[in-house]
């Protein structure tokens, strides 16, 4: 297993991740199209399906340990306040209450980039952690929260990025409200020159709302100590990330902390970070000598466990008469909540189109509200809505069909680095998608429908990183009966990780998947792997799984060669056995081989290879939407969405299509209904449950058609997989917005596109 240590860099959520990693340098024969493969790419049923449909799947929410007690958190009632006094006496007297933590009796553990502590006397948003109660039952813990008397000194507060930018604005932290002290800036070429070259210069402004992840399983943890050893069950997208934060916060060696996530009920980015609640549970469990379970309730989740920050984006571009882009600028303002986070949305703006003169300026601003976190394609969802609406406007200015305009400004190389792409099949995606929606046949002149129901067709483009990269490992254990156990450096968040790892190993070793067990989400038994984010899991892990399986095959061949007394090149591996090519009587199965070798188990460790140098690695795609707008009610009905993407190889047709559906439907939620409403007068959130924060239901689902235009990206890795979880949501809102414009001839520049906005656009 040739290995080397390399410096590596790949795109993860909103930024590049640089690290030194051990990588596999083994080269395997390229897999061809999925038609030539046996298991990979096929519509395979999830191997975790049984657990999930039978109710036996144990989520952190279901963890129940002997003697377990329950903790709840008291959140701040005000958006900005100093806790003057906190009286826990009455609460402590309530029968069944075991302990209460506040800033006064808890170690000062730094949090959110050293901008606050686990418990801070200064609370900066509604819901900010004030105290935690642990009691014999959940009911008692909740009751005790009401008995804690907190004396707040209320401070003035800020609820919008506009407000945060004002010179006399309340400072949320001593060093001001702009994250990092100044905007993030990027430029290439010379925009002034570019605008001079232009025949038409146009600008417009768009805004997007705050959206909340709201996974179905609430954020929760359970903690149990055994002397110095701590086990944490956590509903997380990153068991190793949690382990590292827990051990650093509590001063424990990483070997003493085990984090377990066998199943988790959705995250969408909200569970990429370690929660304060996890540390609180661990502290309480140590004090009490009892297992402690802590759950954050739905209301608190809507307040403090993350959101997609809002944005106001001003875009400006110069074009030649023929539609060629000559210059582009973007200035964006995003309110990221009370602690440093990132709200930039320039990724698509900088990267999709060919334009040599470019400048972006992005302000991430702190306000007195729950802090933003990565939310499925952070920045790209908001950014693509604005960019792709704007591109349609430019096309109209130039008098060119929107699809034609995009092809005109198609970039053959990465505009940021000038590097070629490993693959870019966006043109093919445009073609497939436009054919499927009937772009040329069905799409009418803008606003030309008569009658009160008006139909329109629109499209938008998607770009994302999602190459994955090292370090990521998979350990393969082959039992003496020829069955296998796969330990993957990951956790499954519902995307099908259990299943594709088994598929890849089954593809190579020709062992049926029902003779495999996959183990994920246990930091003490699995090898290392990244968080489930950035659409990096399948592209990072699947090549490591192939590496482990190919090494296993080599081991078996080498063993068979010794046992059969034939050179390896006279042997052939087939269906978990080795045969002599020229002598049919000579063969050996895996169990026989192990028996002859007096072995009980073969073990191999697979690693991810390094990403190819001097290439840009991106996924691409386009969504095409057909909508019907009721011009009397302002309601937008989505009739059909076609999604066409270049995502490298599909590992599992069933789970990939499912995840596309999910992304598109969440995109519809973002486009039409989801919005956290923060009251500027009180600094409180008005909608913190499913009754008032609307998410799509089964009735909101249109006809959806998925096309994958790519096969394996063999330059990228030995499986050629690019990530697709985030690409699925990125262009939906933009495609819908453009379809609405095509229907009614008025542009909705603000998300969500609720009926009031549609009616205002039509009649004011």
């Amino acid at each position, binding site marked *: 297993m040739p290995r080397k240590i390399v410096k590596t860099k790949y795109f993860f959520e909103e930024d590049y991740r640089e690290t030194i990693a051990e990588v596999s340098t083994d080269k395997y024969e390229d897999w061809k199209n999925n038609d030539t493969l046996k298991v990979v790419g096929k519509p395979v*049923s*999830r191997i*975790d*399906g*049984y*657990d*999930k*449909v*039978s*109710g*036996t799947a*144990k*989520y952190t*929410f*279901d963890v*129940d340990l002997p003697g377990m007690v329950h903790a709840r958190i008291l959140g701040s009632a005000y958006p900005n306040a100093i806790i003057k006094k906190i009286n826990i006496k*009455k609460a402590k*007297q*309530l*029968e069944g209450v075991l302990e209460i933590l506040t800033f006064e009796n808890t170690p000062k553990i730094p949090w959110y980039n050293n901008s606050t502590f686990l418990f801070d006397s200064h609370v900066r948003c509604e819901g900010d952690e004030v105290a935690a109660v642990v009691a014999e039952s959940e009911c*008692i813990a909740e*009751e005790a929260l*009401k*008995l804690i008397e907190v004396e707040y000194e209320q401070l003035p507060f800020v609820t919008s990025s506009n407000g945060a930018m004002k010179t006399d604005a309340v400072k949320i932290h001593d060093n001001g409200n702009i994250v990092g002290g100044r905007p993030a800036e990027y430029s290439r070429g010379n925009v002034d020159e570019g605008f001079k070259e232009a025949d038409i210069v146009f600008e417009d402004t768009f805004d997007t709302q705050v959206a909340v*992840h*709201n*996974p*179905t*399983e*609430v954020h929760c943890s359970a903690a149990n100590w055994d002397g110095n050893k701590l086990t944490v069950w956590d509903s997380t997208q990153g068991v190793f990330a949690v382990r590292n934060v827990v051990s650093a916060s509590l001063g424990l060696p990483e070997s003493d902390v085990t984090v377990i996530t066998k*199943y*988790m*009920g*959705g995250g*969408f980015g909200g569970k990429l970070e370690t929660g304060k609640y996890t540390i609180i549970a661990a502290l309480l469990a140590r004090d009490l000598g009892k297992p402690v379970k802590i759950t954050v*309730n*739905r209301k608190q989740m809507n307040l403090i466990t993350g959101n997609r920050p809002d944005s106001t984006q001003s875009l400006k571009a110069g074009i030649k008469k023929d539609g060629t882009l000559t210059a582009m600028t973007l200035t964006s303002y995003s309110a990221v909540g009370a602690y440093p986070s990132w709200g930039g949305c320039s990724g698509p703006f900088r990267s999709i189109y060919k334009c040599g003169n470019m400048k972006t300026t992005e302000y991430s601003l702190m306000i007195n509200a729950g802090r933003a976190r990565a939310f499925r394609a952070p920045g790209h969802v908001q950014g693509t809505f604005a960019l792709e609406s704007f591109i349609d406007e430019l096309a109209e200015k130039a008098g060119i069909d929107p699809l034609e305009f995009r092809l005109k400004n198609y970039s053959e190389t990465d505009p940021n680095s000038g590097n070629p792409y490993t693959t870019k099949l966006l043109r093919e995606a445009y073609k497939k998608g436009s054919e499927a929606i009937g772009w040329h046949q069905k799409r009418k002149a803008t606003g030309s429908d008569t009658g009160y129901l008006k139909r329109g067709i629109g499209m938008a483009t998607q770009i994302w990183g999602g190459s994955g990269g090292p370090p990521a490992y998979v350990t393969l254990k082959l039992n003496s009966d020829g069955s296998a156990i796969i330990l993957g450096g990951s956790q499954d*968040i*519902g995307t*099908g990780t259990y299943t594709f790892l088994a598929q890849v190993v089954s593809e190579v070793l020709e062992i049926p998947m029902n003779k495999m067990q996959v183990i994920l989400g246990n930091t003490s038994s699995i090898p290392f792997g990244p968080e489930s984010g950035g659409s990096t899991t399948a592209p990072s892990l699947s090549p490591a799984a192939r590496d482990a399986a190919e090494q296993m095959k080599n081991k078996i061949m080498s063993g068979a060669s010794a046992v059969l007394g034939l050179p390896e090149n006279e042997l052939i591996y087939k269906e978990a056995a080795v045969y002599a090519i020229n002598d049919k009587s000579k063969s050996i199965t895996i169990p026989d081989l192990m028996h002859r070798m007096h072995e009980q188990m073969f073990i191999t460790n697979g690693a991810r290879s390094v990403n190819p140098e001097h290439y840009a690695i991106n996924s691409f795609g386009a969504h095409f939407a057909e909508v019907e707008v009721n011009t009397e009610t302002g309601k937008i009905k989505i009739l059909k969405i076609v999604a066409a993407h270049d995502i490298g190889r599909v590992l599992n047709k069933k*789970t990939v*299509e*499912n*995840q596309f*559906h*999910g*992304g*598109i*439907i*969440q995109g519809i*939620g973002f486009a039409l209904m989801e919005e956290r409403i923060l009251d500027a007068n009180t600094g409180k959130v008005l909608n913190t*449950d*499913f*009754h008032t924060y609307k*998410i*799509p*239901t*089964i*009735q909101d*689902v249109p006809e959806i058609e998925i096309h994958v235009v790519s096969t394996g990206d063999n330059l990228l890795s030995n499986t050629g997989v690019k990530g697709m979880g985030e690409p699925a949501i990125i262009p939906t809102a933009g495609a819908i917005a453009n379809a609405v414009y095509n229907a009614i001839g008025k542009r909705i520049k603000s998300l969500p596109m609720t009926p009031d906005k549609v009616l205002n656009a039509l009649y004011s």
Partner: protein
Amino acid sequence: MKDKSKSRVFSRRNFVKGIGTSVIGTYAAAPVLSKFSMKIFEEAETESKTKESLSLHVNGKKVSVLIEPETTLAELLRNKLKLTGTKIICNQGECGGCTVLMNGKAVSSCHLLAIDAAGSEIITIEGLMSGEKLHPIQEAFIEHDGLQCGFCTPGQVMAAQAILIKNPKPSKDEILQGMSGNLCRCAAYPNIMKSVIAAADKNK
């Protein structure tokens, strides 16, 4: 101090009883009312805390328990009977995550007091199985991949079962109606639809 905790406890029970919410379809209005109502009762109640005895059938077996009267059916199933297949997602009747069958009809078990289920037949996701063998609806959800993270799945499966009990050959509209109270944030909806249609087709 003890009294205060009891008051909340009883108020919730009285309220939920009062409006008699239980069947899916009453999701929308109930949770908002319940918050107001809790406050109203908080002041008035002074009853002392006692356990109540309760008998009902769960998955075909008779269950007799002593419970605090404020216990919801979901809490009884999950905490007392350790049937954790039933999930709690919103805990206020808005999402269908806690759906179980009560006398053959889908109810939100988080929004129903256990004592209001006295004497009834409750079927949970665990009760659909025969030993380790899956029910055809459960099989359909695997076959058609009607799930992602799986957390909403028990509720979805039970809602589907309720539809099929009412009408073994439901129309597409009936399925959409019947499933629309069950939220899935992963939005596996198209495959959930396929799964239910496939399960219904087995009855044709």
